[in-house]
């Protein structure tokens, strides 16, 4: 049980992070089609 819980903890932590990153990248790419580069001062 200990090994399962330890592995589950790491999967949840890194999986949750990966899900947030994926959602952010997807949303960013979708929005980029509507926002011209001049409205993105960091580029």
């Amino acid at each position, binding site marked *: *049980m*200990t*090994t399962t*819980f*330890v592995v*589950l*903890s*790491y999967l*949840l*932590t*890194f999986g*949750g*992070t990966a899900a*947030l*990153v994926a959602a*952010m*990248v997807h*949303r*960013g*790419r979708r*929005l*980029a*089609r*509507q*926002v011209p*580069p001049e*409205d*993105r001062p*960091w*580029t």
Partner: protein
Amino acid sequence: MGRAMPAPSTTRNVTGTRFTRGLGIATLASIGLLAVLGLVVTPADAVQRNGVRIMYVHVPSVWLAYLAFVVTGVASAAYLWPRTRSLTWDRIAGASAEIGVLYVAITLVTGSLWGRLSWGRYWVWDARLTTTALLFVTYLGYLAVRGLGGTHPQRARRSALVAMFAVVEIPLVHFSVQRWNTLHQEESIAKGEINGLMLFAIFWGVVAFTLLYVWLLLHRQRVMAMEDAVEDRGLDRALVERRAEALVGRT
């Protein structure tokens, strides 16, 4: 002749810069090292045995959540202060709160798994656990307030005021183990109860998660800036349409 397609660079690397790409590589490398340290290199604890390995993601997660909520508070104060008022502060506050909510949720779940191994229970209504759950619900409420609608300045002012109250909960959570008799242990690191490789793994986790936080914050607030720009364009378009309708109505 059809219109030229936009260059691929407009939808790739949308929120990235040379700095964030470097930071992203450093973050990935440090997280990889943390996983190796936490799962392979560090020894099992004499009391907790292998269950202690959960601590190497649990402690950095709560650190990241605290950091994120403090930044939300500071950015909200900067927005409310007339001399520094800017929607950039509002977006930093909102982006930071979103990240903090995810990591406080991870803290609650990993802590619950650790609790099952150490205490035999997934959850107890202990002061630390209860105040952490309250912190989670409070910042969910903060995000709900951000989504209520209105203009960007209205959203910024409303949510900044909520953040000013919410940030007070952080010391309440942190010092709950000292103020009340709790099942949750007191600060083991400050008391020097952890040392050697175990201490290094926790320290490394905090460094890795701090890098991760900065990377996430930079990207998320840039995505928010684009969301605001798209909303503004929609409003401008709607205004033009209403004016045109009004002109047609007069003639």
